[in-house]
């Protein structure tokens, strides 16, 4: 079958959907992947797994209706030229515009994956935010109406879409465990590799308020006040997103010594290997990849009792769950793990086991393809 996969950001095709694309090729389908921005590395990587790449004009943020109309036309044209039989997209614009284009191009099978609700579904913080949210919801309603199958990454997102009436009745819905994680690529890194530097925590992600970066910084300051040898790493970057922290705020944390800023990492594995615990105090996620990757490498987790986060671990077994926006609880959890190396070891081992059992990317990809009847 001729499959077209559309994503927003080119590197995500390999990083997040690589195993799914490979499984499609493995089942004998011809696969064309599309995303914004031409990227030589992605093109080459996709070619290696037997997937063609076409760059399209998607912009992730921003709402310029004229460009969006152009985009739908472009997608429609490309899918018709390819005589695509199955359309699959993830992230908001590819889902919405892609699904409309696929319908118009006569692509008979259309599916979407909701990878995380993000800013548009967070509790509105301003009039503008409320307006953006309303537009985003309207877009999803339009797009999903064109799809026969929708995948969610966690039960909360599915429930939220149902509650907001964004899911047409005849659309089939399936919950998958994110995109899973490549358990060979994220192989166990012995905890001893990390312990020589003292107790080390790691945050991975864009420095957004909604990811809980401020709670992480507060935790770093408080834990270090009572356990000065403890280290708090940040592997991430400042983002144009409206909830991003400022350079000045980040500089303040670095200057006072609370956090050590690693910046964006091409390969996150060395940073995970240096730490014993990955911390993600996020307010909401689809399925947080950083958590799965760290678990796959045998690391304990501290994350929030929030949609998408709470499913990744069982509280007390692979790590600790804390309430959102609660720096005190986060600090207590951090201290509990700082002070108990045996617990860290046990949780790290349990984390790897859980990933191998439930989140192996190949199993997740096969689950999706089986659901799609591909």
């Amino acid at each position, binding site marked *: 079958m001729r499959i077209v996969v559309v994503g927003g950001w080119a590197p995500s095709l390999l990083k997040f959907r690589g195993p799914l694309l490979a499984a499609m090729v493995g089942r004998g389908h011809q696969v064309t992947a599309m995303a914004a921005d031409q990227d030589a590395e992605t093109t080459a990587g996709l070619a290696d797994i037997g997937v063609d790449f076409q760059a399209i004009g998607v912009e992730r943020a921003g709402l310029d209706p004229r460009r969006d109309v152009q985009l739908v036309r472009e997608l429609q044209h490309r899918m018709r030229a390819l005589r695509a039989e199955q359309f699959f997209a993830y992230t908001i614009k590819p889902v919405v515009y892609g699904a409309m284009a696929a319908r118009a191009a006569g692509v008979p099978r259309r599916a979407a994956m909701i990878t995380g609700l993000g800013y548009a579904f967070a509790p509105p913080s301003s009039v503008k935010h409320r307006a953006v949210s309303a537009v985003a919801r309207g877009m999803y309603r339009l797009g999903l109406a064109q799809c026969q199958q929708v995948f969610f990454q966690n039960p909360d997102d599915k429930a939220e879409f149902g509650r907001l009436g964004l899911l047409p009745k005849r659309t089939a819905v399936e919950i998958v465990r994110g995109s899973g994680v490549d358990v060979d690529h994220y192989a166990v890194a012995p905890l001893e590799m990390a312990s020589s530097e003292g107790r080390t925590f790691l945050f991975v992600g864009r420095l957004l308020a909604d990811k809980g970066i401020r709670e992480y910084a507060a935790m770093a300051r*408080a834990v270090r006040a009572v356990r000065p040898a403890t280290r708090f790493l940040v592997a991430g970057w400042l983002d144009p997103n409206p909830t991003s922290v400022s350079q000045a705020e980040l500089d303040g944390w670095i200057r006072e010594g609370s956090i050590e800023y690693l910046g964006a990492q091409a390969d996150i594995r060395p940073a995970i290997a240096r730490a014993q615990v990955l911390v993600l105090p996020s307010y909401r996620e689809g399925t947080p990849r950083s958590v799965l990757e760290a678990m796959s490498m045998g690391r304990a987790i501290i994350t929030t009792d929030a949609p998408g986060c709470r499913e990744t671990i069982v509280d007390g077994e692979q790590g600790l769950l804390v309430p959102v926006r609660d720096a005190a609880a986060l600090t*207590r959890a951090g201290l509990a793990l700082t*002070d108990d190396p045996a617990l860290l070891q046990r949780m790290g081992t349990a984390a790897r086991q859980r990933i191998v059992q439930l989140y192996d990317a190949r199993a997740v990809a096969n689950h999706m393809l089986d659901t799609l009847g591909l």
Partner: protein
Amino acid sequence: MLTSGRLSRVDLSRGARDTAAVSAQRSLNPLYVIGAGGHAKVVIATAQSIMLPLGGEPVALWPDIRVRDDNTAIHGRSIMGITVEGDNASILRDPHFCAVLAIGNNGVRARIGTTAKCRFATVIHHQSIVHSTVRIGTGTVVFAGAIVQPDTVIGAHCIINTGASVDHDCVLGDAVHIAPGARLAGGVTVGARSFIGIGAVVAPGITIGDDVIIGAGAAVVRDIPSGTTAVGVPARPLTPRERL
């Protein structure tokens, strides 16, 4: 219209209440003090001394301290304003609870420490001085005025009592008790479950075995083999005759 509006509000608030209940339970994270004797008072005071700088008013690390003891005769009594609420077993066997052992007997602490399933807290007084290079085992308590110097390693469930000092490069096994005001010089090794009496001093580089008792005020200048009790200046083993 009104009805459905009210209904949905009720549903929302119920959801919020459930989440809040879970949150409260987790964020309070009670600390269970196991044992309700005099030593427990100091463990409680030590736990209460620890405040977290979280911006604004400092927040207690353990805002909810509870006390347990297997002696049913004292259940319901109050210690430092905290009611002794029940026996130990239900706490010790549950991995969701966090406890600290306030039991003076080293052997008992060691036994419970290795068999219990609960988590243990390491409780270090706000006004003790513990160098950042020191490694301290889980469940150990360090009281006010104690000083622990660089590169020392302390085991689990130890007691570093009021005003004791443990100098650089010492190695203390599990469930060791350094009594108030005792002083270990640099490079001293103390085996598991050993007790260094109040005001005792231990000269540099001395090795003290497991299950040793050093008497109050002793000056230890020679190595002490496991299982012995030594007293005096200089410290000598108590002979069986003396012990009769």
